[in-house]
């Protein structure tokens, strides 16, 4: 059965539906195959690290899952997020944001290369063709939506009515489902292109030797190509430079150190100030409504376990102090390693009679926000580098870094390193 409604003419109407409309001599299956092959590993790494980020929140504990309740239960992860290596989340989330940034120029170039397909004639040839085109709408919409929401989120810009996390996370299901189908359906075309023209051979041709791919009906190779004004290698080098530049911005704020200030457009590329507390801040004390009166001499850390205790900051400072170099790694892909000093979480558990902790619920002074209260796992409490930090780089914590006390756990997402801690409730195993 041919799905060709009688009112549609065999001949396409004038305009972009005519094959002669598309004149670029560079468009063709080989170019699209090369861009697609570059995108494939980036999307895989970006997707895997994205799902790992959800796992890093230990969503099965307490109220840690930030996704809406319900669903098929496939949003629950069956392993506890490890504490080693300490840079684990800095690595996975740095990769997530950086691979996403690298992919964007390639994605835009790939969309340019396949644009004639949007106007192919007849619009629908068969049921299979119709479904494939519907899936392509999900692929284009899904990729643009997921990359755009991610991009705006790392720049703290939220012009939309929805919750970022829900939309980005479930939008990626739509994108990745369409992406997987697309890879499967197009693999033969990619392999044929590479077999016929070589994987990289067309990049050797300079402008004088650049020729259009031979026209074949149903492909993006042009019917009436214009004389080339740019070689394929110049095009690929330009797209590659855009990708490398964007990726460098991401890597600079993830790796930090002297590299950070070179990531000129990266959201966390500058030092806040000089001094021990001058490193990057995710949320200032003022932004979450912490009043100086709450953190002054009247502040007490409330501990609960087999017994209860209330400790002043001086009492905490009198306990055995440990110092470790540990990273704060933000979900937005930036991180910074500092020397934290404080009391081990397991010592605090022992202070209220819990020797073997199953989990601990940490609460902040901040009055609102999904992450004012988080649950840490037994493994996180057991790691001797997990601290209730009182000092950083030899100085008292600043208000913006969580004074009087904050949690720091190796390998954990920054938002699980609760600032302005008010209470900790240890549950025995």
């Amino acid at each position, binding site marked *: 059965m041919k799905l060709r409604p009688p009112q549609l003419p065999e001949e396409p109407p004038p305009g972009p539906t005519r094959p002669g409309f598309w004149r670029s001599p560079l468009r063709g299956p080989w170019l699209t195959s090369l861009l697609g092959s570059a995108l494939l590993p980036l999307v895989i790494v970006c997707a895997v690290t994205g799902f790992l980020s959800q796992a890093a929140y230990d969503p099965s504990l307490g109220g840690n899952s930030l996704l809406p309740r319900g669903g098929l239960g496939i949003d629950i992860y069956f392993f506890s997020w490890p504490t080693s290596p300490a840079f684990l989340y800095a690595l996975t989330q740095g990769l997530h944001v950086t691979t996403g940034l690298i992919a964007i120029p390639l994605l835009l170039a790939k969309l340019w290369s396949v644009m004639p397909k949007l106007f192919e004639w007849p619009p629908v040839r068969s049921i299979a063709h119709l479904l494939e085109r519907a899936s392509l709408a999900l692929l284009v919409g899904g990729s643009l939506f997921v990359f755009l929401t991610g991009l705006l989120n790392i720049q*703290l*810009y939220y012009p939309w009515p929805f919750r970022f996390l*829900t939309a980005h996370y*479930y939008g990626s299901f739509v994108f990745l489902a369409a992406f*997987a*189908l697309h890879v499967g359906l197009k693999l033969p075309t990619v392999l044929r292109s590479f077999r016929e023209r070589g994987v990289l051979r067309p990049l050797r041709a300079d402008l004088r030797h650049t020729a259009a791919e031979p026209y074949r009906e149903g492909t993006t190779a042009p019917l009436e190509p214009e004389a080339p*004004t740019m070689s394929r290698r110049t095009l690929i080098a330009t797209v590659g430079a855009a990708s490398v*530049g964007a990726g460098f911005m991401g890597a600079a704020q993830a790796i930090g150190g002297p590299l950070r200030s070179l990531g000129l457009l990266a959201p966390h590329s500058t030092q806040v100030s000089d001094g021990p507390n001058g490193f990057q801040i995710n949320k200032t004390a003022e932004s979450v409504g912490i009043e100086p009166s709450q953190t002054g001499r009247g502040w007490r850390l409330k501990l609960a376990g087999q017994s209860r205790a209330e400790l002043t900051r001086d009492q905490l400072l009198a306990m055995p102090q440990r110092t470790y170099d540990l990273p704060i790694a933000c979900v937005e892909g930036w991180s910074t390693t500092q020397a934290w000093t404080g009391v081990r979480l397991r010592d605090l558990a022992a202070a209220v009679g819990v020797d073997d902790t199953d989990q601990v619920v940490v609460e902040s002074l901040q009055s609102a926000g999904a992450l004012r209260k988080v649950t840490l796992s037994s493994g996180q409490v057991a790691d001797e580098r997990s601290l209730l930090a009182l000092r950083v780089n030899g100085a008292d914590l600043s208000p913006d870094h969580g004074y009087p006390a904050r949690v720091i756990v190796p390998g954990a997402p920054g938002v699980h390193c609760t600032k302005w801690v008010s209470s900790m409730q240890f549950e025995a195993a």
Partner: protein
Amino acid sequence: MGRLRATYGASPLHALAVIASFAVAGYGFLRIAESPSALGTFIWFAAAIFAHDLLAFPFYSTLNLIAHRSLVKPSDEWLETRRVPAINHLRVPTILSAVSFVIFFPLILGLSSTKYMEYTGQSADVFLGRWLGICGALFLGSALIYAIRLRRAGGSPGEPEPTGS
């Protein structure tokens, strides 16, 4: 089997793959549909396609066409008469500046500057200057390379090459 292929237009494996893909995508849509601002999410999803395919693509294609028409001679022999084409010295820095703008426009335009200041304790004012600096460096670099290439080619743009070599 042959009948299915004729009715459907592809192999049964194709049909199975499409169904599997739609099932997973459907799950994503379903979870979004259950969220409080489902309609807004779907509108943004559709608007993303519209904005790229029917606004951004025609816009940058038209810019390219204008550059092409004004810098490249219509004849096929332009390569012979202009050994050093100017157009790519304009295209490459334009593409790189535009893509960096597309990626970082909220910071460059200061669209989230209030929230950025509130959250990070820093001003977002620096990004516009930095981006302009990057653009300036790209165009300047491109112009320098163009000048060097012109000098090497031993002529000015548009000047016919000496023949008989």
